[in-house]
C-alpha cells in the first residue's frame, strides 16, 4: 500500500513538474499567459490595495519608527514644546499634509523642466517574495498613463511604468536589479550607464574610456528616442564613491540616488516631455552653508572692569 502511495505521489510530481515546465516554456517563447493573467490580477487587486493603503498609511512605518525610538528620546522635550504650538495650528491631517508637500515638490520639478505630468498616489509595493522592486500607483490608462513613461518624485527619477490597467499602473523602481538608464554627468556631459543594485546605491559605468568622474558629480537622465522610457534632463543621483582601480576599460563609480525610494507617497508620471531639453537646469542646488558670526560685547555689570569683559555672544545669521 505504501509503495503504491509513493508511486502515485511520484507520478503526480512528474506530471505537475512537466506542466510547470510547459508553462515556463510557453512564457519564454512569448505566449503571454503571464501578461494577461497578471494584468487581470492587478485590475482586481488595485481597489483592494487602495482600500488597504488608506488603512495602512499610518502604520506602514511602524517598525522603523520603533527602531528610531531610542534616538529620538533626546528630542522629546523640544518636540513637546513644539507640539503644543502645532496643536493650535494643525488642521490638516499630517498624512495628507505630507503628501501635499511631496506633490508640491514633484509639480515644482515638473514645472521647472516643462513636463506635463499626471500625479498619483502610491497604493502598493512589490511583494518581498518576488525580488523585484516595484510600486503600484492609482493612475492608469484612463488618466493617460502608458507603458514606458518616466515616473518622478520631488527629487528626480523614481522609475518607469512597467504595466498599466484602467485605474492603476505598476512602476519598476530605479533600484530594481534589471533597471538600466543612460545618464550624463552635469557639466562635463560625459555619458554613462547607471545600473540598479537592489538598494538606493547604484553603479555608474562610463562609456567613454577617457571620461572621468569626480566625487559629488550630479547625474542627469540622457533621454530616449521619443522620450520613452526616459525623458532627458531629470536628476538621477550624485557620485558617492569613485573606483580608481585600473582593471576596467572605463571608469566606474557608486552613485546615491536623489529620490528616496523607501518613502514614496506621491509620484508623477511624465505624459509629455518638454519641447526643449532642460540641459543642466534641474541639477539639485545644495542648501547654502549658514555662517554664524559671534561677537563678544562687554556686559553692563562689568563696565568698571574693562580688562576682564564677560562675553555675551550675539549671533547674526547669514546665508
Amino acid at each position, binding site marked *: 500500500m505504501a509503495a503504491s*502511495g*509513493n508511486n*502515485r*505521489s511520484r507520478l*503526480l*510530481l512528474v506530471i*505537475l*513538474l512537466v*506542466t*510547470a*515546465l*510547459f*508553462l*515556463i516554456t*510557453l*512564457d*519564454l517563447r512569448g505566449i503571454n*499567459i*503571464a501578461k494577461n*493573467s*497578471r*494584468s487581470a*490580477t*492587478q485590475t482586481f*487587486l488595485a481597489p*483592494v*490595495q487602495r*482600500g*488597504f*493603503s488608506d*488603512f*495602512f498609511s499610518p*502604520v*506602514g*512605518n*511602524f*517598525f*522603523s519608527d520603533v*527602531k528610531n525610538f531610542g534616538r529620538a528620546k533626546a528630542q522629546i522635550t523640544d518636540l513637546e514644546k513644539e507640539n503644543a504650538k502645532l496643536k493650535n495650528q494643525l488642521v490638516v491631517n499630517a498624512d495628507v499634509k505630507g503628501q501635499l508637500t511631496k506633490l508640491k515638490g514633484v509639480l515644482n520639478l515638473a514645472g521647472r523642466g516643462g513636463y506635463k505630468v499626471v500625479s498619483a498616489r502610491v497604493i*502598493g*509595493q*512589490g*511583494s*518581498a*517574495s*518576488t*525580488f*523585484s522592486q*516595484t510600486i*503600484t500607483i492609482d493612475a492608469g490608462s484612463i488618466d493617460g498613463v502608458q507603458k514606458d513613461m518616466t515616473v518622478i518624485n520631488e527629487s528626480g527619477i523614481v522609475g518607469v511604468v512597467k*504595466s498599466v490597467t484602467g485605474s492603476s499602473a*505598476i512602476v519598476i523602481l530605479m533600484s*530594481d*536589479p*534589471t533597471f538600466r538608464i543612460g545618464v550624463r554627468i552635469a557639466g562635463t556631459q560625459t555619458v554613462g550607464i547607471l545600473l*540598479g*543594485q*537592489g*538598494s538606493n546605491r547604484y553603479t555608474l559605468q562610463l562609456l567613454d574610456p577617457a571620461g572621468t568622474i569626480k566625487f559629488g558629480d550630479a547625474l542627469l537622465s540622457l533621454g530616449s528616442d521619443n522620450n520613452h522610457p526616459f525623458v532627458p534632463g531629470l536628476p538621477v543621483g550624485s557620485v558617492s564613491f569613485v573606483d580608481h582601480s585600473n582593471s576596467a576599460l572605463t571608469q566606474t563609480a557608486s552613485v546615491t540616488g536623489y529620490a528616496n525610494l*523607501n518613502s514614496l507617497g506621491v509620484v508623477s508620471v511624465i505624459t509629455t516631455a518638454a519641447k526643449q531639453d532642460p540641459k543642466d537646469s534641474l541639477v539639485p542646488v545644495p542648501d547654502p552653508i549658514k555662517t554664524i558670526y559671534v561677537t563678544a560685547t562687554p556686559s553692563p555689570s562689568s563696565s568698571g572692569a574693562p580688562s576682564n569683559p564677560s562675553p555675551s555672544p550675539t549671533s547674526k545669521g547669514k546665508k
Partner: protein
Amino acid sequence: MSWTRAGLFAAFLFVVFILQEAAISKINFPISGFSLYLAVLLGLMSLEDKFGAIVLGFIGGLILDFSPSSDSPFGKWALILTLVGYVFATNRESIGDFTERPGSFVIFISIGSALTLLVFLCFGVLLGENNGAFGTNMLTIFGNSLWTLLFAPILLPGLVKWRSITVNARERA
C-alpha cells in the same frame, strides 16, 4: 487529497495572496519584507502527506505566479513550490507530527522559506534572469526567514484548525 479540499485550499491561499499583496507588502519591515503567503503555504504543506504537499505546492505556486509585481516567467513558482512540496513532505515524514512539536514546526517553516527563496534565485540564474546584488538578496532571504521564525508560532494554531475543518472523515482515517 480530494478535489473539494484542493479547491478550498486554493480559495484560502488566494485570500492570503491578496492579503500579502495589498496589506503585508505595505509594511516596511526592518532588514527585509515578510512573506506571509510563503509562511502559510509552507505551513499547510508541512501538515499534509506527500501527495497533498505536492498538490498544494503546485496550486500555491500557480497563485504566486499571478503576482503583478513578478517579472519571472509564468510557472516558475509552480515548478519550485511543487519540488519544495515533495522535498518538504519527504523530510517531514522523518520528523513526525508537527502539532505535537511546535518548535520543530517553526524552525522547519523558517528554514523552508529561506531554502525556497534560495531555490527561486538559483533557478532565476539558470533562466538568465538578473537577480541583483548577492548581498542584498541574502539579506532579503535572511530577513524573510527571521520574520517567518517570529510569526510562524502565531500561524500554527490557525493552520491546524483550518486543516481539521477541511479534512473529511475518510482522509482523517
